[in-house]
């Protein structure tokens, strides 16, 4: 009997319906699979986070006007950026049309380009803050200030998890992105919904998960411990009588025992055949994508893969570094799409690829010593990609102005993106609420509209 069935069986006898707060968190299994508001097309989320800020005009939002106006100040309205920005700067890379949809993609994403008909590009994203911290908070938690639950917390709170032997929400990053744990926090929700952060710079599972293996005890010896524990706990339960929350508490060791073998399996990408592994094994990000695939395959609800530590895509000094970053990113994304498809998971997984903001079409005034050719943060307009369950592939939604600076057609706030993602999972984002300090909170705060045009 797995933990879920066990809890359902035991929980049934207590008449605990209607408990709130602490008791509810501990009694009604907080990770039990729950039905969303309506049947969603997707059941899992993979969020590939290109932290630092991917430039839209060099990747997925071509702007021929930048070639014409290269080196001249941007015509029109006064621009507002974090740092002084100079003249417009054309992209160093060429764009070409791809797929049946004819969507234009930069040459630094050749493999994604080949599969562009699977993707929906929202080219009219905008966000509220030009600093990494607040905008990372918005992208992940729907609010500028820290302390609100992250998207993954909301998703696991809403849907529970399909595999109780693994965490419901996993975050992969070789170390830490800017702000670290506040990006995958459960905020004011029970901490079981927080992301389990795994530093995926290692390949060996025992180095990835804290306390996963026991260097001293054999599984047989642990079985003996568990047998004794079961008897001790039963005695305790008999003595104190039926108590809310106690059963699941005393049985967490049993599920941990199962987790040991399951996690050792799922995180061990060496178990994939060489031809599969080779496509990912080019970067930490790539290996993260492969782990994400294996986790989703085993029922993990949401996996977030950060491209790297701190903020790799933050190309202030030199935009050409984007090519080197894309080189580590493009292939694994393509491989992930292909493998999700071949394993029958593509249609039930929503894939989100994006950054906290974009980059200016203008050159950034860098320091003296850099003689720079970089781009600054851009909040009024940037691009994200979506694919998979519930998403209409081969579509472009919205547009920025002629220079890629500001979203002018169908401007889409991060809240709208969150609302749409929740919709694909079967949630009305206005109704997925959590009561804290007397208020029903939402991932989308008090805004957000589902973008119906991009739904399959």
């Amino acid at each position: 009997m797995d933990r879920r069935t066990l809890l359902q069986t035991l929980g049934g006898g207590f008449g605990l319906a209607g408990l709130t707060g602490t008791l509810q968190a501990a009694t009604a299994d907080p990770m039990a699979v729950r039905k969303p508001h309506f049947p969603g097309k997707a059941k899992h989320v993979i969020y590939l986070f290109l932290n630092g800020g991917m430039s839209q005009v060099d990747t997925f939002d071509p702007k021929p006007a930048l070639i014409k106006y290269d080196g001249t100040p941007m015509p029109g309205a006064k621009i507002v950026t974090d740092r002084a920005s100079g003249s417009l700067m054309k992209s160093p890379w060429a764009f070409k049309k791809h797929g049946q949809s004819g969507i234009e993609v930069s040459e630094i994403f050749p493999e994604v380009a080949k599969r562009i008909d699977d993707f929906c590009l929202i080219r009219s994203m905008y966000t509220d803050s030009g600093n990494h911290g607040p905008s990372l908070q918005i992208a992940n938690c729907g609010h500028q200030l820290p302390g609100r639950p992250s998207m993954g917390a909301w998703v696991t709170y809403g849907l529970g998890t399909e595999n109780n032997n693994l965490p419901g929400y996993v975050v992969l990053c070789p170390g830490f992105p800017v702000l670290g744990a506040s990006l995958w926090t459960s905020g004011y929700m029970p901490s079981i919904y927080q992301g389990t952060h795994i530093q995926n710079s290692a390949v060996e599972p025992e180095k990835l998960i804290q306390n996963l293996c026991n260097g001293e005890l054999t599984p047989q010896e642990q079985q003996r411990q568990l047998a004794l524990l079961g008897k001790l706990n039963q005695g305790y339960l008999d003595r104190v009588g039926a108590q809310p929350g106690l059963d699941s508490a005393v049985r967490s060791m049993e599920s941990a025992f199962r987790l040991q073998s399951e996690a050792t399996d799922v995180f061990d990408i060496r178990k994939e055949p060489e031809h599969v592994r080779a496509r990912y094994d080019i970067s930490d990000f790539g290996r993260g994508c492969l782990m994400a695939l294996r986790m989703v395959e085993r029922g993990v609800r949401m996996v977030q893969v950060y491209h790297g530590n701190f903020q790799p895509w933050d190309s202030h000094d030199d935009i050409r570094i984007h090519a080197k970053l894309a080189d580590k990113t493009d292939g694994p994304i393509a491989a992930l799409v292909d493998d999700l498809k071949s394993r029958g998971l593509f249609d039930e997984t929503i894939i989100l690829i994006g950054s906290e903001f974009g980059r200016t079409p203008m050159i950034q005034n860098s320091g003296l010593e850099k003689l720079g050719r970089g781009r600054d943060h851009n909040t009024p307009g940037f691009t994200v990609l979506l694919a998979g369950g519930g998403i209409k592939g081969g579509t472009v939604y919205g547009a920025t102005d002629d220079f890629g600076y500001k979203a002018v057609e169908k401007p889409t706030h991060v809240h709208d993106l969150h609302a749409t993602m929740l919709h694909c999972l079967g949630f009305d984002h206005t109704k997925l609420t959590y009561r804290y300090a007397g208020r029903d909170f939402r991932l989308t705060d008090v805004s957000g509209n589902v973008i119906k045009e991009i739904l399959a």
Partner: protein
Amino acid sequence: MRALLPREPGILEMRRALQIALCMLPILAMGADDIAFFETRIRPLFAANCYACHTNSKMGGLRLDSRESVLTGGNSGPAIVVGNPEGSLLMQAVRRTHQTLKMPPTAQLKEEEVASLAEWVQRGAAWSKQESLPAKALDASYVITPAQRAFWSFQPVRQQKSPAVKNKTWAKTAVDNFILAGLETRGMTPVPAADKSTLLRRVTFDLVGLPPTLQELDDFVKDNTPQAFAKVVDRLLASPHYGERWARHWLDLSRYADGQLAASIDTPLPNAYRFRDWVVDAFNKDLPYDKFVKAQIAADQLPEVERAALLPGLGFQALGEQGHDQVDVTTKVFLGLTVGCAQCHDHKYDPIPTKDYYSLMGVFRSSSAIQHPLVPKAEVEAYEAHKKKVDAMKEVIDDYLILQQKLLADTLARNTADYMVAAWKKDFSAKHLDRQTLDRWIVYLADPKKEHAYLNPWFDLMKKNPSEDQVRKAAEEYHVFALNLIEEGKEVEDKNYVAFGGKKGMKNENNRQYTNIVSLDTLKFYQWRELVSGPYSTDGFKAPAGVYYFGPKEIDRWLGGFAKDHLERLRIEFIALEKDLPPMYPFLHTLKDADQPADIPVAIRGDEKNKGEIAPRGFLSILSHGDRQLFKNGSGRLELAEAIASSANPMTARVMVNRIWQYHFGAGIVRSTSNFGQMGERPTHPELLDYLAKRFVDSGWSVKSIHREILLSNTYALSTANDIRNAEVDPENKLLWRAHLQPRLDIEALRDSLLAVSGKLDSQIGGAPSLLDKGSNRRSIYLTVSRTRLDPTMALFDFPDANATSDNRPVTIGPLQGLFFLNSTFVADQAKALTDRLTNEVGADNKTRIEQAYRLLYSRRPDARELQLGIDYLNEGSADTRKAWQRYLQTLFGSGEFTSVN
């Protein structure tokens, strides 16, 4: 039209409703009685009960301020079906017969109000000609209605007599009378009391967060005097560990961390712990709560005699974020009010206008966080002056090195052609060429893949098996180009240097950001970097140093004579200066008033650029007596502190005694401990709450006195035993017919207990925080708390996100927690230590050791079955008895009895 189609009543009903509505329109317009009925009965009812949410804010998509909007309805469909109250969603909602819609959400309408509404719908839902209320302008004066004033938590705390009870023998204290009276009205009786050892274990965890020692256990079990338990409570309240336990609750509330709360970075603050230590000490000393509160808002303005002792309390504000966070946390924690909800609009449920929010905001905006040195001014000045000298000297050295580095690069570049030819020939004989530079050239030219085309002629030539003459010619061509490029780079630097306004201007970050500068062409920049720039790296990319770049660590060998002597002298001077620099002086994080405190305007819809009327600094309207209390002195913080820490304000004492109650019983008398507003819960025992609040104030705001009120009751001493009949009436145990079982110890108690029983606990009190992963054995409250990198073990066991105030830790259970017991070296280490401790203390006999372990871990002796289980386990396992014991104890640690408190 489609948008109006209802989801719930169905299309046919909708059509019918519209037909009826359309038919009735002419009649309605004329029914003067109906209009009067609407104006006297219905509109006031809507205004009082519904308009907080159903006008501009359109909760659920529904407005109730015009006939059209009522007929159109909201997300669930039309609110009413004219002439058909039963079929109207509005009626189903107010009658609470609808499955999900139950309105108003917090308080049911009176019967006569429901009847009026039904009659209004039946009679055609008349609406007077002035179709809708004008949308309330933001600067309209805000009126608190009598109904809002009458809300329970805004009433003064009343003197309460303990109620009469039928059972004359059970109740021991006033608290018991209130609890028993509550039970008796529902026909319930309390379960029997817990046994002595259970009670001792419970109270010890409650007050000090550790299990009782064997001595404490024996003393209490043997003590048969009536005062035995009171003695235990006194002993625990006097223990220095009491403060460590209760300060942690307060630190949860005050979102404490050893770093600055800010939106973008997590700056470590090595002096933050002084606030934590102050809180520990305040609890231990039973600092009167009103003073405790004032210290955390305005210690800098309290009377001189006590100021120094209270000043660390300002960490509550200074470690947070200036502005919104301070308003939000201060009001939630001290007043139990969600004032933060009024940031963008008037509070939807409570009588808190946005203007009040910005009145408080003005107070905090008129204050700023400062570092308050804990050493004499002269010492601070001496340190700062010395630090300045060190920094200045460092800059002189750095500048000198950069100058030398540039000179050297220039000089080396003059031999570019020779280096290239020598690199091609692998000829190391030329005396005027530097070997290391030549090696770099060889490496550089070995890889033809460059990000620019300037070396293409060279690499093309290389493919053609060239003669030395050809090579030299190509090298000379490149040589000219390289010198020009370096020259061009210098020109760019010079131009920018001027544009920035010289060295000073360059150091001014603001100036730097808003100066238009020039730059090299991208491809030339790459080439320039490969020649003369230092190594470049960013998170995603690394470029090596240019061939001619020799940085501060490599340049020494190039220097000689005067330059060398000069640098050496500078360095010696620097080292001497640095050696004399003392560690930075200790300081507190406090606040000070701005030189010119000022009121700020309301930010309309929370947008600070959209300025509304000025909000004069002052206290919350609802908690002011008579005219709203405005602040006149400085920022107004002291007046705010006094208004909060006052018995005239009904919230503060109630909120705190309720928190103390929660930490003893698992849930508050008001379960929403930080929200005593409309959307919060109502007190289960309002009279008891007032009784305690009154006692609290009368005792001189003594927290310890409230502990005694609670702990010495028979209610606290109940067992956790079940009672089927009680459980049916009150499954959540809201009326406290039994004790609350804590299903899992919080992480601090869990970790501290493991260390305590193993004998490894380092009981040093206070001081700088220790890192958990550095193997510290100190109590958990002393571990470093990061805002962005929560310790994974702490986070796993529900340690809260330190960026938000946390008033009650949820208890979650997951498999990763089990791994901690199964596999962590920490638990294994404690099992080993306890094995040795047992052997040392009681010898090698298994039975004796098992008994001792049970007493240490569970505060009781094992029964025969448990003893046998232990003996069997130890006998059948490994031949190594020490190992067998470790595994056995590890299992005892993981058991529910160790990790829960009953």
